[in-house]
C-alpha cells in the first residue's frame, strides 16, 4: 500500500457516467484501496476501470483465477488493513458465498457488487434478491443496498464501505443490468462533503486483549495483521479471545452478537424514501431499478387524481419492516413491484399482510416493467 493521493481519488464534478463506473468512483471516494475480480458480464466495466484507477490512488488490483480467489483475496486484504471490494454477476456471486460466509463469521469488512443477470444472459432481473440474504451458509444478518440510478450507485458505494467498516460485516451492492450499463448524470461532491467512516482500532495495550469482545455497539475494534495483536481468525465458534470452542454457550453468544450488531442498528441501516405517501390509498413498494417505472406510474396516476404513492426501498436487507408496516396500516392495498417470480413480495406479505391486501406485479422475462404495465396493475386492484 502506498500513499493515498486524494486528488485523483475523488473526481469532484458533474459527469455523464456509466453505472458500473459510478460504483468505482464511489468506492474510491470511500477509500477503497484493494480490488479483486474475475471477468463476468455485465460487471466487467467495474474491473476494467478499477485496474486503471487503483494504481493511480496507490491501491492494488488483482484479477483472480476465479471468483473464489477474488473474494478470499478481498477478505485477506481487508484483514491486512485494506478497504476491499469485488464485483461480479449472479453466476459469479454463487461462488462467492463461501467467502461471504467466512467474512460474516470472522467479521471482516468488505464490499461485494452483484450486477444481477438472468441465467447466463445479460437480461434485466432482480432474481438474486433472496440469494443476497440467504446465500451464505450459517445463520447471519446481511446488509444489502439496492440502488436505482447511476447517482445511487455512487452514493450507495460510499455507504456500503461505511456500513462494512462500522459493523464489520460484508455489505452487498445489489446492482442490476438496467442501471449498471446505463449512462446518466452523476454529481460527485467535493471531498470534504463526503462522509467516510473507518474501522475502529483497539487500544494500544495488548495486555488481556480480547479481539472479539464487542464495544457497546456490538462490534469489536479491529487491528490489521502485523499490528502485533496475534489474532486467530476462524470460522469455527470462537470466544472473545478468539479461541475455538466447542461449547453451545459460546456458539450461541457468538451468533447472537454477530446478528444483533445489525438487528440493533436497523434504523441507521435501512434507507427508504416515500413519494406521495401522505394521502395514498394504494402504495407501491419497489426496490432497485423497478423504482423508476413505479415512480413514473405514480406520477401518471397522480396527474389523474388517483391517490397512489410509492415506498422506495434503498436497503432491502435488513428489511425496512417499520416503513412497510406503516404503509400497510395506511393503505387499503399494497402493490409490490418486482422483476422476478415474486420473491421480496413474500417479505412484504409477511410484514403487511395482517393490515391490508398485498398485491403484486411481477415480471420475469429479462425486461424491466413499463409504466403502462404498472398502471394496468394499479387499475386491476383498484
Amino acid at each position, binding site marked *: *500500500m*502506498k500513499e493515498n493521493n486524494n486528488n485523483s481519488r475523488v473526481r469532484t464534478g458533474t459527469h455523464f457516467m456509466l453505472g458500473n463506473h459510478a460504483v468505482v468512483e464511489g468506492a474510491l471516494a470511500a477509500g477503497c*484501496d*484493494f480490488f*479483486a475480480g474475475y471477468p463476468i458480464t455485465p460487471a466487467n466495466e467495474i474491473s476494467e476501470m478499477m*485496474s486503471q484507477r*487503483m*494504481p493511480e490512488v*496507490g491501491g*492494488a*488490483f*488483482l484479477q*483472480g*483465477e*476465479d471468483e*473464489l*480467489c*477474488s*473474494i*478470499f*483475496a*478481498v*477478505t*485477506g*486484504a*481487508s*484483514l*491486512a*488493513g*485494506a478497504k*476491499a471490494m469485488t464485483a461480479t454477476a449472479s453466476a459469479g456471486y454463487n461462488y462467492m458465498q*463461501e*467467502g461471504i460466509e*467466512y467474512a460474516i*463469521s*470472522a467479521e471482516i469488512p468488505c464490499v461485494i457488487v452483484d450486477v444481477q443477470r438472468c441465467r447466463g444472459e445479460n437480461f434485466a432481473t432482480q432474481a438474486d434478491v433472496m440469494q443476497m440474504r440467504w446465500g451464505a451458509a450459517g445463520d447471519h444478518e446481511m446488509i444489502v443496498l439496492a440502488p436505482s440510478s447511476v447517482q445511487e450507485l455512487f452514493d450507495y458505494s460510499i455507504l456500503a464501505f461505511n456500513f462494512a467498516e462500522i459493523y464489520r460485516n460484508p455489505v452487498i451492492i445489489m446492482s442490476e443490468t438496467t442501471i449498471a450499463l446505463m449512462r446518466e448524470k452523476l454529481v460527485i461532491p467535493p471531498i470534504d462533503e463526503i462522509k467516510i467512516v473507518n474501522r475502529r482500532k483497539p487500544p494500544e495495550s495488548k495486555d488481556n486483549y480480547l479481539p472479539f469482545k464487542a464495544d457497546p455497539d456490538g462490534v469489536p475494534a479491529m487491528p*490489521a*495483521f*502485523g499490528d*502485533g*495483536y*496475534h*489474532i*486467530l*481468525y*476462524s*470460522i*469455527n465458534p470462537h470466544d472473545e*479471545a478468539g*479461541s*475455538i470452542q466447542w461449547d453451545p454457550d459460546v456458539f450461541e453468544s457468538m451468533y447472537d452478537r454477530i446478528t444483533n450488531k445489525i438487528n440493533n442498528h436497523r434504523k441507521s441501516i435501512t434507507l427508504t424514501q416515500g413519494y406521495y405517501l401522505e394521502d395514498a390509498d394504494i402504495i407501491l413498494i419497489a426496490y432497485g431499478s423497478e423504482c423508476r417505472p413505479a415512480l413514473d406510474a405514480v406520477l401518471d396516476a397522480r396527474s389523474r387524481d388517483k391517490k397512489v404513492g410509492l415506498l422506495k426501498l434503498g436497503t432491502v436487507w435488513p428489511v425496512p419492516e417499520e416503513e412497510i408496516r406503516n404503509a400497510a396500516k395506511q393503505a387499503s392495498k399494497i402493490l409490490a413491484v418486482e422483476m422476478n417470480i415474486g420473491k421480496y413480495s413474500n417479505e412484504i406479505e409477511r410484514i403487511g399482510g395482517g393490515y391490508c391486501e398485498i398485491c403484486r406485479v411481477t415480471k420475469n422475462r429479462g425486461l424491466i416493467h413499463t409504466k403502462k404495465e404498472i398502471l394496468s396493475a394499479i387499475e386491476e386492484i383498484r
Partner: protein
Amino acid sequence: MMTEKNPIRRYLRENSLPHFFCSGCGSAQVLNFFLQAADEIDLDSDNLVAIGGVGCTARIPVYLNSDALHGIHGRTLPWATGIKLHNPDLNVVIFSGDGDAASIGGNHLIHAARRNLEVTMIVVNNLTFAMTGGQVAPSTLVDLKTSTTPYGNPENPFDICQLASTAGATYVSRSTTQHPRQCINFIKKALHHKGFALVEIISQCPTYFGRKAINSGIPEEGIEWIEDNSVTVRESTKLSEEELKGKFVTGNFVNINRPVFQGSSYYFDKEFE
C-alpha cells in the same frame, strides 16, 4: 530447582493447547519442525501471518502465537494473495494438507506458483483426507485402499512438487517426517526465499491412512513405510521411470530467483515514481 521454559514455546499460542492431533500424527511433528526453524532464525512473530485451510495440517496455525487465519478449505493462497498485495512486508506462511493444496485448492496452487507470490507453503502430504476419515486424495498412490477406494485407488496421483515446479514455483523441496533435520533446514530455506516457496513433507497418518492403506495403525510402521518408499534426488537419477513409480523423491528440486508478484504496482512504481 528452577525450571526454564523451552524457548520454542514463545511461538506457541498457549491458550490453544493441548493440540488435537492423534498420537503419532505427522502434522504434530511438522508443527514441531516449524517451531524449531522459527527459533533458529529468530522469526518475528509480530510480522507473521500463519494460514491454514481445513484439515488436520490446517490446524497448525491455530497453535501458533501470531496473527492467524483458519477454516476455509483450499483458499489459503487467495487469502495470502490479498494480504501480500496490500502489505508486502508481512511474512505469510501457509500450512496445508494434500487435499487443501492439490485437490480443492489445486487451481490456486498453480496460479500462485505462476505469479511467484512471495509466501512459504508447507504441504504436509499424508496421502489421504485424514480429518474426514481417510478418503482417497489426489496424492494417494495407485492401488491403495482408502475409505472411498475399498477395492484400490484407480487414479494416478499428483506429484505436488512437480506440479508446483512446472507451474513456476521458485523454491521447491520435499522431505519426510523420517528426516526432521532436513525438514527444518528446508523450512528455514523457504522462509528466507524471495518468491513462492513450497516444502512438501510426506507424513504418516496412523489413524486412517495407516490402518486402511498399509494395514498398520502403528505410527513407527507408517514412518518405516514412508522411509522404504523414499529415495533421494541423487538416488533417483539411477532409477528407471518404472522403478520410480510409487516412490517419494526427497531433496531440493528448484531454487531460483525471479521477480515476485506485486500486482499492478509493478508498473506503477516504474511509471509514476
